[in-house]
């Protein structure tokens, strides 16, 4: 093979890798602890692959490692969008083992969970800087969205020029206020849903296909 042919093939491989529309996109599911990220990841994974991603719990920091579910093929309007879902630990700036003691967890286990939670948050930040192509930012719509962690995280996501969708979760609960979330992040599209009950999932999948397809 001639030098120019080799060079042309090499350039072609690089450009194909950079610009291929078929490349699997990794979509990170981010948000504060207890927003329902794993419930959402499981809902999406179960709907399109039949498998779950990880255990769900009302105890904060249940997800302490980022988990990736590969090859989730979502079909919308006759087209198929293939993504990897990355369920990440809830992001916070502080972790205190005593918050686990309220959930009937003994002190030794609480300290271990705290240590793992800190590692998980660090891991989630690393994924965000290096390894995701788009973000679903999940918020509990019964909670105040105007927190520093939310503001910082969305700012960090924007600075990476990543496409982002805001999901206002838990609309099945009393006190849910989707408009408050839309007001907090007017620069982004907000989609309401209940990942637990499966409410409004058609719109969720339409938006995922539109933003990340």
């Amino acid at each position: 093979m001639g030098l120019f042919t080799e060079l042309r093939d090499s350039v072609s491989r690089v450009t194909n890798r950079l610009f291929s529309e078929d490349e699997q996109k990794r979509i990170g599911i981010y948000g504060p602890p207890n927003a329902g990220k794993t419930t959402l990841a499981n809902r999406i994974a179960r709907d399109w692959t039949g498998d779950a991603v990880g255990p769900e719990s009302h105890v904060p920091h249940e997800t302490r490692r980022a988990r990736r579910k590969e090859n989730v093929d979502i079909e919308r309007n006759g087209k198929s969008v293939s993504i990897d879902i990355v369920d990440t630990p809830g992001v916070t700036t502080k972790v205190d083992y005593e918050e686990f003691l309220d959930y009937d967890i003994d002190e030794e286990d609480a300290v271990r969970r705290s240590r793992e939670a800190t590692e998980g948050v660090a891991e989630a930040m690393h994924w965000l800087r290096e390894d995701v192509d788009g973000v679903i930012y999940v918020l509990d719509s019964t909670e105040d969205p105007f927190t520093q962690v939310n503001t910082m995280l969305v700012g960090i996501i924007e600075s990476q020029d990543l496409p982002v969708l805001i999901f206002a979760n838990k609309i099945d609960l009393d006190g849910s206020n989707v408009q408050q979330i839309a007001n907090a992040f007017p620069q982004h599209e907000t989609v309401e849903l209940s990942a637990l009950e499966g409410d409004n999932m058609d719109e969720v999948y339409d938006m995922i296909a539109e933003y990340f397809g």
Partner: protein
Amino acid sequence: MPEVKDPSDGVQIDLISGERMEGMTGMEKIRMILDGVREGNIVILEQGLTPDEESKLIEVTMTEITPADPEDFNGIEIETYPRGETDAGLFSRLMGKDESSKLTVIGPANQIETLHKDETLISALVSRK
């Protein structure tokens, strides 16, 4: 000015000018902030951090938390005035010039509690270590 005989009698507040931060690398800024906060100080930055620096601040904070002894260090509280609506262009962002004038207050989570925050006021309660 009242005399403080023992530093543990008071809470130290470090107001750090934008000029002092200007020549520092991201990691140097983070180290300076966390060293101060871990000593129980409240650190106020005249100019905030870039999103990338904020991301690394969270990451490094997590690696320094001592879960078995939360009295020692269990993380940070951080508050910043909301970011302006101005959408900096790509060139400004590449040059790192989109984060000016973002007053930021950072303190140890086990000593600082945000009482109130709006677009023009951050009110915090600080306890001694």
